[in-house]
């Protein structure tokens, strides 16, 4: 009888019972499994619950929502491009000075950066842990674990729900690219510049830069369409059928707002309306 050493090994649905047990054991080494599986309902529930999927989803929700707030602010800032170079660069400088003299220069910005970094790390850690659990819980095959090829897309699944994980990866890679491009001025298509305004204009005058941003923003839009709804539901806000509808509408609005809000500057620059 083959046994499984870790939960990461690929699972077939015709796994043996022993394999099932060792899978469970790898997941939760603090519990014993087998014919004498005992249910524990005594002490230690709280600390275990902190590592539960429900808690991880709550962590993803909170970190995700903080990032959504940041995106809304970021989007607002981007739109200052219409007020011209001075206003935009001035705003950019202000972000470095805000909080002075209580905080040192760039202090507030660093606080935001650290908070965002923590959110990103929590979000990614929780995502990969849950992804892994979900694959183990479906023999590595997710929604495609049935032999039949019929109805593989489920009964009512939204396209957005399919794209959460890989869409999240795309958004993550994009964020790195974006930071190297517009924040660090490390990658400089169209030419480097100390002026954030100029960096934007230089970059978004090139078709493939615009295209890469458009693709990433669409991925982000889908991610938010399901993510915002799902975040509220994970935090317990989905309390009725009507609320489910309402939260989904909210998610659509947020996703569209961010998608459109972020798309306007690059498209406008590419069209040559802002120079």
């Amino acid at each position: 009888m083959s046994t499984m050493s870790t939960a990461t090994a690929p699972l077939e649905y015709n796994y043996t019972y022993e394999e099932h047990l060792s899978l469970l054991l790898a997941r939760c080494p603090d519990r014993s499994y087998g014919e004498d599986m005992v249910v524990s309902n005594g002490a230690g529930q709280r600390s275990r619950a902190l590592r539960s999927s429900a808690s991880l989803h709550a962590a993803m929700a909170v970190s995700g929502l903080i990032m959504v707030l940041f995106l809304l602010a970021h989007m607002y800032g981007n739109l200052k491009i219409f007020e011209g170079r001075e206003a935009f660069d001035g705003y950019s400088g202000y972000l470095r000075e805000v909080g002075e003299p209580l905080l040192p220069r760039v202090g507030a910005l660093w606080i935001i950066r650290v908070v965002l970094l923590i959110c990103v790390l929590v979000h990614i850690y929780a995502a990969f842990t849950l992804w892994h659990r979900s694959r183990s819980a479906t023999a590595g095959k997710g929604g495609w674990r049935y032999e039949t090829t019929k109805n593989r897309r489920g009964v009512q699944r939204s396209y957005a729900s399919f794209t959460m994980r890989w869409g999240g990866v795309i958004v993550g890679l994009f964020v790195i690219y974006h930071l190297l491009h517009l924040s660090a001025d490390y990658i400089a298509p169209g030419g480097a510049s100390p002026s954030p305004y100029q960096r934007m204009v230089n970059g978004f005058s090139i078709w493939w830069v615009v295209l890469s941003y458009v693709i990433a923003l669409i991925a982000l839009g889908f991610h938010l369409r399901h993510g915002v709804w799902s975040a509220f539901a994970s935090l317990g806000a989905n309390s009725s059928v009507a609320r489910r509808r309402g939260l989904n509408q909210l998610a659509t609005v947020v996703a569209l707002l961010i998608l459109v809000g972020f798309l306007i500057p690059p498209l406008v620059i590419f069209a040559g309306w802002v120079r």
Partner: protein
Amino acid sequence: MNVTLRIWRQHDRHAAGRMVSYGVESISPDMSFLEMLDVLNEQLTAAGDDPVAFDNDCREGICGMCSLVINGIAHGPEELTASCQLYMRHFTDGDTIDIEPWRSPSFPILRDLIVDRSAFDRIIQAGGYISAPTGAAPDAAAMLVPKKDADRAFDAATCIGCGACVAACPNGSAMLFTGAKATHLGALPQGQLERNSRALAMVNQHDAEGFGGCTEIGECTAVCPVGIPLDMISRLNGDVLSALRDNTT
């Protein structure tokens, strides 16, 4: 009508399984899906083959024993319908119908279309109850329960524990089952004292059984034969979070 069935055959939990095709003829549209399988099994028996093993009992949609994934959909194409209440009139002559068991590593296949759902019993053991020893109850009228709470509890309590939610979930999560029980007991005044500890214990057992987390996709509620709504998962999530905030649990 005549149909072709492709059915998952697996001798026992240790054996490898595969899809096998069978033809069934002269099916009446008034037959239930399980009665159509009865006809197949009579055929197989007459030919000396092993009949297809499948779980079923009440055949009226309440016991939760039947568990077929039909053409990739748990309990088949009709909404709010368990496999046993599905009728052949919803299929057409000449159809090929794929029949598989619930697939979840937490529901080991015992034979053919039969799976072991004892994980659900253990989730209930962990906390899916109100501690009320026999004989200790006060008069039933001593506690008033607002009608809307009683109705909400009832809606949650109609869960038949079939496991279709797990079978349909792309994450293999049993949060709809667990959430329904937490909502049933948590909606009632009798259930408040244990509400926090119940939420934690049930969620921990849910995870320990190997079920995945909920990403709020909603496939579970779409296939649920009694229409347990998705908000019951959110209710459980909320209970878990408030239990974690309450450091006395």
